[in-house]
């Protein structure tokens, strides 16, 4: 079975504000404000290049960040599930 592909709204549809290591995000489509801890904002940034699987997101993030995890894709998948529940990402 092919891995799920995740997508997010483009960055220009959200307002972000960094505060004390957290990111406050205003999502225009829903009108909701979210408090995000790393690596959630970085996952959304990685998705701005287009839909991707958890492994692909990990690879995209690896270009800019050092990921401290033995299984980055699994760690990313867990955060993706949270972002999906919050309505910020969805499966294509």
């Amino acid at each position, binding site marked *: 079975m092919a891995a799920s592909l995740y997508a997010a709204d483009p960055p220009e549809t959200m*307002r972000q504000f960094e*505060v004390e290591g*957290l990111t406050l995000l205003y999502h225009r489509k829903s009108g909701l*404000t979210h408090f995000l801890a790393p690596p959630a904002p970085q996952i959304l940034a990685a998705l701005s290049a287009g839909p991707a699987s958890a492994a692909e997101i990990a690879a995209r993030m690896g270009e800019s960040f050092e990921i401290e995890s033995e299984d980055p894709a699994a760690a990313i998948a867990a955060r993706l599930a949270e972002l999906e529940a919050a309505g910020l990402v969805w499966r294509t």
Partner: protein
Amino acid sequence: MNHVFRLQVGPVSFRIGSQWRRPVAQLRRLYEGYPEPEGVCDFTVRLEAERVWRRWLRPSVAIRGDYVLPDAAPLPLAQGLLAAEMGMNLQMALGQKRFLLLHAASVERDGRALLMTGHSGAGKSTLGALLGERGWRFMGDEFALLDLADGRLHPFPRAVSLKNESLGLFDGVDPARLGPVLTGTPKGRIRHLRPNGEAVARMGEPATPVLILFPRFGRDLEPTVREVGAAEAFMRLTQASTNYVALGESGFDALTRFVGALPCRAIDYADTAQAQALIDELWAKA
């Protein structure tokens, strides 16, 4: 409506209509010296009989207006003044779109404002009113109006609603500034205090906020100051705002700018003298 009173408070105007004379007469007396609004008022509050026959038999006041809470309980006519005050709060809380509304007290010195917010019983209203009698300009004890465009705070100096023990702290003020004592209200014993002449005369002057305080009152608390991070301040202020969600992105922008630029502190105190000492100390550094 048989009896009408029009009232300007800061940048907001109200038209209060009542089927009874007494609540309007009490409002006129309480808000003596306030300017009359020009043109159409921003909000309408109507005090109506819950049912027609109740206007005569056991009168009971229902609060109506542009915005209505369907389950708002009617109050006895003796509390008509309280109903009018609650009606004004309700219209602001649900209908205000020009400002981010923060449930907070604010006072000003030298064009700079101190904002105090907290849960009911934290003492923000009492502290705001006390400071207003002690060298600060009282801007409001119920709502602070954060300008969405320039981040300044606008005054909203409505009558202060003094509750229970705090009534005794204002024994020295001119009795003409005090409303009737309302007993048995949902919040206990209440007496309204008209803000002083300076607060009324300068109700059109906004101020630049420079310090946010989260006071907490408790008889057993040691006087302490704690730094509050911008993330916690943001969260607490969204809870303290009645229209954050309704404003959408402009509310987000205004509030992030607000907490990003200002120091925020939580203070614990057991009496008003302690609170004032802490506030003086923090204000000197702000």
